[in-house]
């Protein structure tokens, strides 16, 4: 059994190794209780131990899945601002449009690009273009969101033994980008985006270089966002 685990670990299958360990542990204990029950313990005790074993196994698998998903989310997707270097294009993948863009639903994930003096948000075939010259204000901020979010995240709230609450402790840092822009008839619009951490200031810089306006310079915002970190240190 040890050889199996070491092979799994060496090949990088951490989750399978953990599951294998938990399964083998549980199996051993179950076997032991089966022998004892024949002689000493009544049926009710056997059921209780069986349910305890099941719970232990479920929690182990849940924990392993959480660890793996967190590891994968931090490693896998290149969430950084991808400077495409195709002309003046700068695009930010995995950007969520929280609200504000005409013709798009709330909380839609797509690609935010700054190109041809415009902010372009693309989701599949849908494309929303906001000319940078009409943007009156660009502000950035920092926030966190649940690592396991969406419908699955909501469903975990109903999981037994407070598993949902436990999972909500795992949070991912995100940046927020808020813009205020004018439509052709002069009406004020607001739009809010969330980007992977460390991208909002780059997006703001790109927008300002294309003609957008702001009341707070990038340097001032960068300093303000860096201050809480210094305090912690």
């Amino acid at each position: 059994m040890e050889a199996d685990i070491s092979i799994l670990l060496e090949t990088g299958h951490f989750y399978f190794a953990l599951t294998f360990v938990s399964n083998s542990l549980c199996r051993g204990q179950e076997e032991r209780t089966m022998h004892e029950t024949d002689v000493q313990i009544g049926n009710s005790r056997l059921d209780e131990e069986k349910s305890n074993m099941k719970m232990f196994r479920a929690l182990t698998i849940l924990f392993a899945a959480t660890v793996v998903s967190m590891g994968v989310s931090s490693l896998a997707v290149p969430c950084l601002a991808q400077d495409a270097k195709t002309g003046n294009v700068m695009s930010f993948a995995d950007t969520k449009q929280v609200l504000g863009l005409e013709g798009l639903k709330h909380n839609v994930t797509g690609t935010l690009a700054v190109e041809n003096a415009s902010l372009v948000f693309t989701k599949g075939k849908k494309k929303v273009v906001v000319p940078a010259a009409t943007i009156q204000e660009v502000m950035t901020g920092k926030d966190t969101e649940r690592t396991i979010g969406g419908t699955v995240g909501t469903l975990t709230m109903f999981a037994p033994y407070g598993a949902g609450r436990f999972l909500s402790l795992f949070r991912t840092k995100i940046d927020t980008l808020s813009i205020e822009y004018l439509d052709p008839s002069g009406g004020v619009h607001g739009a809010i985006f969330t980007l992977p951490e460390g991208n909002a200031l780059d997006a703001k810089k790109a927008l300002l270089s294309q003609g957008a306006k702001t009341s707070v310079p990038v340097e001032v915002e960068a300093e303000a966002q860096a201050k809480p970190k210094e305090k912690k240190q």
Partner: protein
Amino acid sequence: MKLIGYLSALLPLALVLHFTGSTALAQDKAQARIQASSIQILMVQSDEVKLPVEFQLALYENLIEQVQKTNKFQHVYRDGDTAAANAADLVILHSNVYGFKKGSEGKRQVTTVAGATQIKVHCLFTEKAGKSELAQDVTGNVRFIGGNLRATFDFAKKVAQIVVTNFQ
């Protein structure tokens, strides 16, 4: 027998009173409703408290969306829209934030009772000339499920309810 006689005499009277009373009340309600064919929603102000810009924009955008959904107005104009100047029967909605408490989504999900986000807004509906039509304080909350910005959605839903109740 006497009692039955009295009751039978009183019954028509009671019915008449009931219906006349209810129609009068309905007329009063109808009279109290404000008549307007279009509304202009101004950008949410926060003179008294420091409100993060994403909350300010979310309040404004949700407000426009929810008021549009009520179908009480032919046009819903945004702040700065030049077309609003020529609109007849226009009411203007001014919103001023006077209380803001930013909670924590994490705290809410872990503890259930702590970490609520609350936004208190004074809403004022005026005529074009500036005469006040209706003023009300509205509070937007998020107490359990959802991010902090959900408080702005809650606020907008409540304002939409006020519009439904008070406008023809």
